[in-house]
C-alpha cells in the first residue's frame, strides 16, 4: 500500500471527515470506523491515494466519514466499482465496506468473483446478521428460525457463513474479528491492509436496534473465553478462561479437548495460515457456536499475483511486443485499397 512520507505524520483523527456520524448510539460500526482510522494512521496511509467504496446499508455509509476519496455506490455493487477503480489506477488503496445483505445477498455474485480474481482490494463485511437500514428483516447470515419483521414465525432459510463462502471462492486472505475487541480488530485490519490481493474480513458487528446481543456469546465477559478461540500462526488452538482447552483433530473433524493428563499442547491443531490448500481454513470456518468456540483472527494468508498486476502486465507485454499503439496500424489491419 502507499504510505505517507515520514515528515507529515497524520493521526487517526486526520482521516475522519467533517461529516456528523449518523449511526445509532452503541452501534458496532463506530468501533470499526475508529479502528480503520487508527490503522491508516499506523500505516501512514496517503489520504489522496485511499478510496473507500461501499454499497447500501448502514455499514455502507462509511465512506462519508472518511477524509479520503469515497464512493457510496448502489446495493451490492461496490466490488464492481472498486474493480474499475483498481484497474484504472492500480496504485490506489481501495477498501470495500459492505454488509451481510449487501455483500452476500444482492451482491453475492460480485463478492465471489472479485475474491476469485484476487483484485487488490480490502473487503470488510460488517456482519450484524440482519438488514439494519431497511429496519430489521432477516439476512442471509441470520440463524435458522430467526424471528424478524419479515419472518414473524421464524425464518426457514438456512444461513450461509461468510468465511466459508470466501474460502470457497479461492480467497487469498480471510480473517474474522469482532467489533468490541478493538485491539484485535485493529490487528486484523492492519494485516488486511498489508495483504497483496483481496483481503476478506468478516466483522461481527452488533446492531443495537434490530439485532441487539446477536454476538453476546462471543463478546460477553462471562462467555467470550469459552466461545471464541484466537488464531495465531504456528500456534496451537487453545482457549477457555483457564486456557486449558484446545482443539484437536479427530480424523477430519475438530474436537474440543481439555489439556492435562495425557493430552499435551503438541496433540492440538496448530494453526497454519500459509497452507497452500485451504482445507484447514475451511475447517476452521465451519466451527460454530454453540458446538465450538468460533475462531477469530487470520484464517488464511497466501500470496498469489493480483488481478490488476496481471491485467497491467498484459498491457505492458503487448506494448513490448507490438510497440505502443499507433492509429495508422489500427486502421490498416486487414485489406485496404485506394480509390483514385
Amino acid at each position, binding site marked *: 500500500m502507499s504510505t505517507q512520507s515520514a515528515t507529515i505524520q497524520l493521526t487517526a483523527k486526520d482521516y475522519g*471527515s467533517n*461529516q456528523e456520524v449518523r449511526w445509532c448510539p452503541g452501534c458496532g460500526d463506530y468501533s470499526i470506523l475508529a479502528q480503520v482510522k487508527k490503522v491508516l494512521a499506523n500505516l501512514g496511509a496517503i*489520504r*489522496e491515494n485511499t*478510496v473507500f*467504496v461501499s454499497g*447500501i446499508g448502514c455499514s455502507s455509509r462509511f*465512506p*462519508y466519514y*472518511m477524509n*479520503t*476519496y*469515497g*464512493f*457510496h*455506490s*448502489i446495493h451490492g*455493487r*461496490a*466490488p*464492481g*466499482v*472498486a*474493480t*474499475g*477503480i*483498481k*484497474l*484504472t*489506477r492500480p*496504485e*490506489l488503496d481501495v477498501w470495500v465496506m459492505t454488509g451481510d445483505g449487501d455483500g452476500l445477498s444482492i451482491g453475492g*455474485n*460480485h463478492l*465471489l*468473483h472479485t475474491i476469485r480474481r484476487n483484485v487488490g482490494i480490502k473487503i470488510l463485511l460488517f456482519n450484524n446478521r440482519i438488514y439494519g437500514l431497511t429496519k430489521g428483516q432477516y439476512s442471509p447470515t441470520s440463524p435458522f428460525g430467526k424471528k424478524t419483521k419479515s419472518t414473524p414465525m421464524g425464518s426457514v432459510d438456512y444461513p450461509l457463513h461468510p468465511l466459508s463462502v470466501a474460502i470457497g471462492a479461492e480467497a487469498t486472505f480471510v480473517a474474522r474479528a469482532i467489533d468490541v475487541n478493538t485491539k484485535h480488530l485493529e490487528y486484523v485490519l492492519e494485516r488486511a491492509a498489508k495483504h497483496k490481493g483481496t483481503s476478506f474480513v468478516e466483522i461481527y458487528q452488533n446492531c443495537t436496534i434490530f439485532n441487539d446481543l446477536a454476538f453476546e456469546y462471543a463478546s460477553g465477559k462471562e462467555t467470550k473465553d469459552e466461545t471464541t478461540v484466537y488464531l495465531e500462526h504456528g500456534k496451537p488452538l487453545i482457549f477457555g478462561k483457564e486456557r486449558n482447552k484446545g482443539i484437536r483433530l479427530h480424523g477430519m473433524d475438530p474436537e474440543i479437548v481439555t489439556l492435562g493428563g495425557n493430552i499435551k499442547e503438541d496433540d492440538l491443531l496448530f494453526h497454519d495460515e500459509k497452507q497452500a490448500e485451504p482445507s484447514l481454513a475451511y475447517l476452521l470456518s465451519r466451527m460454530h457456536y454453540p458446538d465450538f468456540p468460533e475462531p477469530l483472527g487470520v484464517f488464511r494468508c497466501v500470496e498469489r499475483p493480483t488481478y490488476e498486476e496481471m*491485467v*497491467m502486465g498484459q*498491457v505492458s*507485454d*503487448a*506494448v513490448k*511486443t*507490438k*510497440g*505502443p*499503439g499507433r*492509429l*495508422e496500424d*489500427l*486502421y*490498416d*489491419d*486487414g*485489406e*485496404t*485499397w*485506394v*480509390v*483514385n
Partner: protein
Amino acid sequence: MVVSTEPADTRKKPLSIIEREELTVRFAGDSGDGMQLVGMQMTNTTAMFGNDVSTFPDYPAEIRAPAGTLAGVSGYQLNFGAHKLRTAGDRVNALIAMNPAALKANIADLETGGILVVNEDAFNKTNLAKAGYTENPLEDNSLSRYQLFRVPVDKLNAEACAESGLTGRATARCKNFYALGLCYWLFGRSIEATERWIKDKFGGKPAVADANLRALRAGYYFGETAEMFPARYLVAPAKIATGRYRKVTGNEAVAMGLVTAALLAKKPLFYGSYPITPASEILHELSKHKNFDVRTFQAEDEIAAMTSVVGAAFAGAFAVTGTSGPGMALKQEGIGLAIIAELPMVIVNVQRGGPSTGLPTKTEQADLHQAVWGRNGEAPLCVLAAATPADCFAIVLEAFRIAVEFMTPVIVLTDGYLANGAEPWMIPDTAKLPKFTIKHPTEPDGEEHRFLPYKRDGRLVRQWAVPGTPGLEHRIGGLEKRDVTGEVCYDPHNHHHMICTRRKKIDNIAETIPPLGVLGEPSGDLLVLGWGSTYGPITTAVERCRAKGMSVSCAHLRYIDPMPKNTGEVLSRFRTVLIPEMNLGQLLAHIRAAFLIDAIGLSKVQGKPFMIQEIESKIEEILNHHNGRKS
C-alpha cells in the same frame, strides 16, 4: 434454364458479358458451411475492386443447429454497385444455395429470372426430408422461374482437393471456397485477394491452405470451362471519394472509435463488458489492442460490467461498456448511479430482437425508450444513434466528446444490422481527427481550501477530480446531494433544483451539435424521419421517389436526446411526417410528445431491416392520399 445436361459441343456459344449497375448476391448454407466467411471474402474483393458495398449477414442463434435443417441456415447477403449504396439490397439477384434447407429458406427473396446456383449433391433424400421437401425441387419444375444452375459442388470439390492430403471430412469443409471461386468467375472478380487471405490465415497448416486454394481455383476454373453459364455479370467500379479504404462492420468501427478517442485524449481505455450477441465482437476486438493501453474486463454480469465502468470513470479512465437489450436492462441501476454522480462514460447498446432473450441474432430498434427512459427517477442522459456501419466510428468519437465535455453518461445505440453489416470506410487522416483536451482539477476551489465537487460552470458541468489528487478528497454516491458541495442532502427544494439542473445540463448539449439537415426540399408534403440503421433504406427510398418526381424529403436523427435545436422547426415545415422504425413507434411517440405533431409511423418488427420497396410504397400511399384529398 438447366443446361448442364446438354452435350458440350452443341452449346458452344460466345459468352456474353452483362453489365449491371448493382447486384445483390446471397450465399446460403448450413451454419457450419462457412457462408459468413466466404461472404466476407467476396465483400473484401468487390470493395477492393472499387464497387460500393453493403452487406447483411443473417445467421441463426444456435451455433450448430442440426445440419441440413431450416433452423441451421446461415446467410450472407452482399450488394455491390457502380454507385453509392446504402442498403444490402431488397431483392436477391443471385442465390447460392448449398443445400435444400438453404434453398427453401431463401428462395422467396430471389427475383424472378434471378441466378440460382445450387449444390446438387446435397439434394439427397435425407436433406430434402430435413428441409421439409416431399419432392426434389430441382426435378419438379418448381424453380422454372429462375435461371437454375446445378453444380455438383461436393463431388467437384472432393476431386479438386484429392491431392491436398486432407481426409474426406476436412476437404468437405473447403466447399465454401469452391462456391466462392465459382462466384468470382461469374461476377468477374479476381481470386487473388482471397488467395492471399487463405495463405495468411492457414499459414501454419499448409495442407489446409493448399486444399482451400485448390477448391477456390477449381471453382473459378469450373465457371470458365464447364460452359454451363451463358453470361458473366459485371458491375463497374463506383465513383466514390478518393482515398484509402478498408471494410468495416459496425462493431469494428465502434471498437476503432473507442481506441481512437482514448488515444487522442491520452487516457487509458477501460472496457467492462459481459458477452452477449451481437455486441461481443466489440470486446473481442478491443482485447486485441492492449498495446493501446486498452484494459478489458470481462465481468461476471452486466451489473458488474456497468459498475466497474462507473468506478473506472471515477478514477479517470475513458470508461466504456457495450451490451445488447437484456444486458442493457441489467445495467440501468448502474447507469442511474453514473447520472447522479455525473461521471463521463459511454454505453453502447447493440440492439437485437426483444423482449427478453427475443431474437438474439436479429436486428431491431426497440430499445429507444429503454435508452431514454429506462431508469428509476428523473434520469436524463445523452442518447446518440449510429446511421451506418462506418458511422459507428464517428458516433463513438462524438459520444466521448459529449461525455467528457458534459460529465455525463452517453448511450450509443447501434443494432444487429449495423454491428454485422459491412461497408467501405475511408481511413481517416489521423492529423485531421478531433482533438480532446481533458482538464482534471488539481487545486481546491472553495473557501478555506475546500474542494467543491458539484460546483458548475456556465453550462452546468461539474469538474472531473480524480483520486490520487492531493487536496481534492471528496465523496460521491447515489444519494441526492446538495448542489456545489456534494454533501448528502434531503432538502426538498434542493432535490427539485438538482433534478432540473441535471436535465438542463443534458439540454445544453444541444448547443454543441449540428442542426438537423434535410435531403430534398426544406418544406413540402412529406418528410420521412429516421434514426439508426433505417438510414439506408429511408434515404434510398426517398431518392428513388424523388427521381420519379414525387415531393418527398428525408431527415435523419443521430442525436436522440437532446435532439438538434431546429428539429421541431424542420418537422413543422411538412404537411406529413412519416417515421419508419423497427419497433412499434418509439421515436414516433417521442416526436409526438415533444412537438405535438401528428406524425405517422411505419413499423416493421421482423428481425430484418426494411426493404427500400416497403418504404417507397408507404411514401406513394401517403402522397396519393394527399393528392386524392387535394382533388
